[in-house]
């Protein structure tokens, strides 16, 4: 009897504490007529890019006096995790900058508001069709493309000239030859490949005409002979003369960028989001020194790079007033005018043709990357696609440290089989 009372008291206490945990919705006031404050999570680089986005948010506030924007910078590498946590509980932003790879997964989990027919998607036809396509999940639009990017070969023209090389390498083999020449004649490492990062390894797979998975054929293709060939090439990019050795420490990204911007390494594979940062480097005081070329091609003769970029998405859990304001904000951020402004400031690529104003086209970084965009491969419509990079990166890191290619690839395939239970190997 008494124990029953104690037990029910415990249950009651738990129930109260659980209820306390789960109450509360998104942000503050819900008055329809008063000013609405929407929270925007920005995931761009906090020092180089975010201030320009913040300026846009201020412009938006000036144009819409009854909407306030609470602009929060969230470091990109933690953002996916933070969003995942916040959107499943509380404290989620009303609108946020979402990496293109997250859109499908978040939409699948039900976190995103479908934007078809809302003010946010009013100009949907003005955007590049492929980018609208990748922001869709099961036929509905869940994000408005904000910037797009792909990987290219960025190189230091001075060092290339010093080594007597006149054109950017077209294939991985040419790249290795050039790297050796650079080491001999210019005395610097010719090439630095980012090790143990799946995203940066994609050009090798595309260069052999393969991918991690075949989304249309529902097949895991990472164990194919082409993929093995790509990984063999990948390994040589750290061991060939004139290439930097594999750096898999947690500071490797910063190491790579420091080496490139200070002229200690002549070429890297990188995207346009780093251009602002590169121009600040000592080696690129003269912006014309930065060469931008498509990523080298593999033995298939084709060059391919992953399509990245960001959308603006609206949180499904916000109330009507916040949603309306958030949709307005998404439309404003992705308008032609805003995109042109961001493109000029950040050298990132706009997602709609009418944002390529003459001034934008004159920006050397953008002009360079626009030429590279032709080699960007659109993402397959697969919610798990961005989750595939993690295992790929981890195991490629092991491979460059001595694990055999076959072991590495079969481990990746095992991980993929878990993520994609209905795919054949």
């Amino acid at each position, binding site marked *: 009897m008494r124990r029953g009372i104690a037990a029910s008291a415990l249950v009651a206490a738990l129930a109260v504490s659980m209820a306390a945990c789960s109450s509360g919705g998104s942000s503050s006031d819900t008055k329809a007529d008063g000013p609405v404050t929407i929270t925007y999570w920005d995931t761009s680089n906090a020092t180089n890019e975010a201030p320009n986005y913040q300026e846009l948010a201020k412009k938006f506030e000036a144009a819409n006096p009854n909407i306030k924007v609470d602009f929060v910078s969230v470091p990109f590498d933690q953002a996916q995790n933070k969003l995942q946590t916040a959107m499943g509980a509380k404290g989620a932003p009303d609108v946020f900058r979402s990496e293109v790879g997250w859109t499908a997964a978040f939409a699948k*989990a039900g*976190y995103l508001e479908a934007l078809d027919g809302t003010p946010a998607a009013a100009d949907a036809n003005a955007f590049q069709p492929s980018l609208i396509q990748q922001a869709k999940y099961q036929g509905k639009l869940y994000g408005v493309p904000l910037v797009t990017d792909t990987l290219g070969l960025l190189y230091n023209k001075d060092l290339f000239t010093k080594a007597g090389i006149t054109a950017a390498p077209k294939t991985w083999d040419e790249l290795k030859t050039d790297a050796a020449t650079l080491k001999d004649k210019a005395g610097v490492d010719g090439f630095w490949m980012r090790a143990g990062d799946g995203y940066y390894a994609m050009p090798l797979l595309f260069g052999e005409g393969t991918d991690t998975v075949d989304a249309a054929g529902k097949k895991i293709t990472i164990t194919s002979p082409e993929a093995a060939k790509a990984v063999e090439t990948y390994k040589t990019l750290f061991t060939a003369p004139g290439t930097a050795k594999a750096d898999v420490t*947690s500071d*490797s990204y910063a190491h790579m960028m420091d080496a490139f911007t200070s002229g200690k390494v002549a070429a890297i594979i990188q995207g346009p989001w780093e251009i602002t940062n590169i121009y600040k480097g000592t080696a690129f005081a003269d912006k014309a020194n930065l060469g931008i070329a498509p990523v080298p091609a593999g033995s298939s003769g084709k060059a391919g790079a992953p399509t990245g970029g960001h959308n603006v998405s609206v949180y*499904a*859990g916000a109330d009507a007033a916040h949603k309306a304001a958030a949709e307005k904000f998404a439309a404003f951020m992705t308008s032609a005018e805003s995109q042109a402004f961001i493109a000029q400031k950040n050298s990132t690529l706009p997602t709609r043709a009418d944002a390529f104003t003459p001034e934008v086209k004159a920006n050397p970084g953008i002009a360079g990357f626009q030429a590279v965009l032709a080699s960007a491969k659109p993402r397959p419509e697969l919610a798990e696609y961005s989750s595939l990079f*993690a295992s790929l990166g981890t195991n490629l890191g092991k491979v460059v*440290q001595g694990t055999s290619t076959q072991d590495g690839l079969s481990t990746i395939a095992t991980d993929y089989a878990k993520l994609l239970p209905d795919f054949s190997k």
Partner: protein
Amino acid sequence: MAVAVQGAPSKGSRDREPRPGLVERFKRSYSKHWYAYVMIAPVVLVLGVLVLYPLIEGIWLTLTDATSLNSARQIGVNKVPATYNFIGLHNYADILWGPGSYDRFWSHFVWTIAWTVLCVCLHYSLGLGLALLLNQKLRGRGAYRLLLILPWAVPTFVTVFSWRLMLSDGGAVNTVLGALHLPEPGWLDDPLGQKAAAILVNTWVGVPFMMISLLGGLQSIPAELYEAAEMDGATAWQQFRHVTLPGLRTVSSTVVLLGVIWTFNQFAVIFLLFGNGAPDAQLLVTWAYRLGFGQQPRDYAQSAAYGVILLSILIVFTSFYRRWLARNEQANG
């Protein structure tokens, strides 16, 4: 509930009064010690909410296929109900002998055991050595003691980040090694170097606690024992063997147990030193974290299963350790 009728003949033919039932005993002890129950009630309640409930919830999770995609979640005002299923012990089977289980579990298991043994041995031996040194009467003992406690007093992330700088390719450690014409290992790069670096940093962090505890133990050994040993002509080694070590036994057994548990579950050092890299240097704890929070979709069920496995290992170890200690106590009188 059975109602006892007064004066009814007892069914039992025995003379001895039957042992009262559980409820009855509880009632009696309650009426006698009710204040004690009242006193511990808040603690029981808090522990129940903070420890027991999550533990049971966690064990339940391990029997399902919960991931971040099928768990219950609240999206603002819309509640999405959980859709995960009960799958029995499949998670454990998958972890222990599923495909790729060596890479996913056993390699980390072996490394975790090796790491625990190596770290605790280093902690204990270095800690004891330093404690013996500090137990001598020397000038400036207080200052030395303070200096040696520093690694423990500095916040872990400061320590680990400093080491990360020193161990990096162009860092202080390799610069010194290079100046001495010794090989410069990739401390944070190659798998073996990573493990060495992790042990080095953890030793640095863990020694002070051992040292302080053992110093306390040393100071509690009566000086008369040493005097008597000296009168009997014992050498320094014999004094250490037969006076110091037995005198430290109680302290040692406790700090070694604590050390094993802490080292086994050492999260911060590995996580801060390697971040998301170094798959081979991940302990079971950091690996479980990665499954549960460091990937998309998050695999709650497997992560929880790792947690339960870790807890089981520690429970088994502790019970054996206690038994072994008790046996030793008896053997040594």
